């Protein structure tokens, strides 16, 4: 009897060690996420549906472009509707060097000026959505330096095999800056995209959940066509619906200039 117990215990330890060994580390998963092909350039339309806790909707239509200049990623978003936000445009230069602050500009049509804005407000919510400036800038990628990551388990999420990853800001300062105390992500094992992310505030309370949906290949690149955010604190919801997604069509370099922000589309 004792021999059987010992054998069972040994088997359990061995199998659990084996499982742990087969799980990739959090850092490996993050690197795989960042290595995912995004194309050199991208153009797309986006419909934003912002819904408050009473169900009142605000809808924005945008056109955006993104292009890599070497390892530097430049993104521009132009608002087309509604009237009160039309012609607003946002430009960001995302540098690969961790120590180098990104550069950001916002064109506000009411001022008719391009305003330089600090990139350290990355935890601020982007123009009334439930995405922060950092969320918008990174899209489906992650900043390696901001978090330490641990792979918790494998899990089937709505028929998709995922790794469940826990990301914790490297220190309190970064946590305050990002507005997150912890993030749990469900990363699709096959395509290295997050299908669901749960965000917790710096006090550990549930903050918001981002669902990545309608993922399909465009020009050979896995592409999310719906991003949905439920903000658990405010009851506010944000839905981004992407259309007319085109990769590696010629996107002119001068789209990513202050001149282009002022001129609009």
């Amino acid at each position, binding site marked *: 009897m004792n021999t059987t117990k010992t054998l069972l215990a040994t088997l359990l330890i061995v199998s659990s060690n084996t499982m742990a060994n087969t799980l990739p580390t959090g850092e490996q998963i993050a690197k795989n996420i960042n290595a995912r092909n995004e194309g050199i350039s991208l153009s797309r339309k986006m419909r934003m549906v912002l819904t408050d806790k009473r169900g009142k909707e605000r809808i924005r239509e945008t056109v955006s472009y993104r292009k890599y200049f070497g390892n530097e990623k430049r993104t521009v978003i132009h608002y087309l509707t*509604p009237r009160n936000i039309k012609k607003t445009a946002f430009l960001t230069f995302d540098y690969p060097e961790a120590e180098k602050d990104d550069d950001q500009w916002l064109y506000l*049509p009411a001022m008719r000026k391009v305003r*330089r804005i*600090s990139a*350290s*407000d990355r935890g601020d919510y982007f123009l009334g959505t439930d995405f922060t400036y950092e969320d918008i800038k990174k899209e489906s990628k992650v900043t390696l330096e901001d978090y330490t990551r641990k792979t918790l388990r494998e899990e089937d999420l709505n028929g998709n095999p995922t790794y469940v990853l826990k990301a914790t800001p490297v220190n309190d300062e970064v946590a305050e800056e990002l507005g997150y105390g912890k993030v749990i992500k469900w990363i699709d094992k096959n395509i290295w995209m997050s299908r669901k992310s749960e965000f917790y505030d710096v006090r550990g309370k549930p903050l918001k959940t981002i669902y990545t949906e309608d993922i399909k290949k465009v020009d050979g690149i896995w592409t999310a066509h719906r991003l949905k955010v439920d903000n658990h604190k*405010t009851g*506010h919801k944000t839905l981004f619906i992407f259309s007319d997604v085109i990769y590696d069509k010629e996107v002119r370099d001068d789209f990513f*200039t202050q001149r282009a922000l002022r001129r609009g589309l």
Partner: protein
Amino acid sequence: MIFLPNVHYVAACKYLIRSCLVLTIFASPVASADTTATLLDNTTFNTRIEGEWAVLTKDGSTQKRQLMIEPELKTEVGNDSSITTIVRLRMDEKDNLSPSDHSQTELREFYLNTSIKDSIVILGKQQVVWGKSDGRKVLDIINPQDFREFILDDFDQSRIPLWIVNTEIPINNVTLQLLLIPDQTYHKFATPGSSYQITSPVIIPPGPVGASIQTKPTITPDKILQDADAGFRLSTFTHGWDLSLNYLYHYDDTPVLFRTINITASGLNIDITPQYKRTHLIGGTFSNTFGALTLRGELGYLTDKYISTTNPFDTDGVVKTGELKYVLGFDWYGFTDTLLSTQIFQTYLDNHKTNMIQGQLNTQITFLIKQDYINKTLHAEMLVLHDIDYEDGMLRLKLSYEYNDEINVYAGTDMFYGNKDGLFGQFKETDRFVSGIIIGF
């Protein structure tokens, strides 16, 4: 009761107005149905309607009850060109801001925006904005300003659009902007007897006691090309810095008040002849971010500024001087959804003489707090402008709420304080509460 338009009603109105405007502006008797249909398909129409009500705090009387409608039409022409038309209709039920001008109908902007290779060409009536400062102007002097409401209107609303040939040419990492402005339109000051008529001796020199003062007709440049303003801006982004170098050869938008003194048997007669004078403006701007802080600034030097003097022995009543202006601004984004901003603004006259109505050095500071709430639908703002030398200033508080995508409501207050001879203090009797609604579709 607030009128809340429903979505279908708004859409139907938009289509109807858009069709009428397109037909009015572009369609000719010989235009084919196909051409008209194409124009309609390539045209977007937006309208901004603003109703504003201002009440004076001193007696509760209505200072302003105004309705402003601004339809905007944009027609795409070809692949990379568009024509924008903005019209303004303004009606004010009260007489206080412009007693002789109850209503205004104006072609506000009308321009072709096109590109030639990599260059942008914008031809027509438009606004061109230079500079980095808020609330005060150093380089933002391409367009003159309507001071009907002093500086309380948004600059976007109070700038007077001009007919301009505006070209932006990229040259490697630099953009060269060239401007030719054959439009001789200047600042529009509040009319005599209106709420914001300028009386401050800092701007208008006081005449000697007992003198008879006559103002002669203003001498205004009138030759389209010879009197045109022209300028350029070189701008670039390098090593984290946004930099620009600006130059403008132009007529100062404020006329110089030349004075002639005649001593006659009936006493002292003073003739004031306002005349617009040319000057060179050279300056530049910079901005960069350092963590949560954005540093921005602009500097401008006017070579030929004429300042009135109260010296009775001065032959023409003005002293020519160079004027250096600069503003240094700090924007702090360290708190969530909050902007804290402060600016120091200084003016220095390099040929200052005793009895000039302005001091050699004038310093103003501004302080702005903006906060957003409820997913940026509710905005709170406080702006203070303070003149250190004249010990006067202005406080603005504003709360605005986006009810939905079409409707924005706001309420606030504009308060002036300090020395009655100061630029701001002269309006301390016009403190007011303001409320309004903006409908945009």
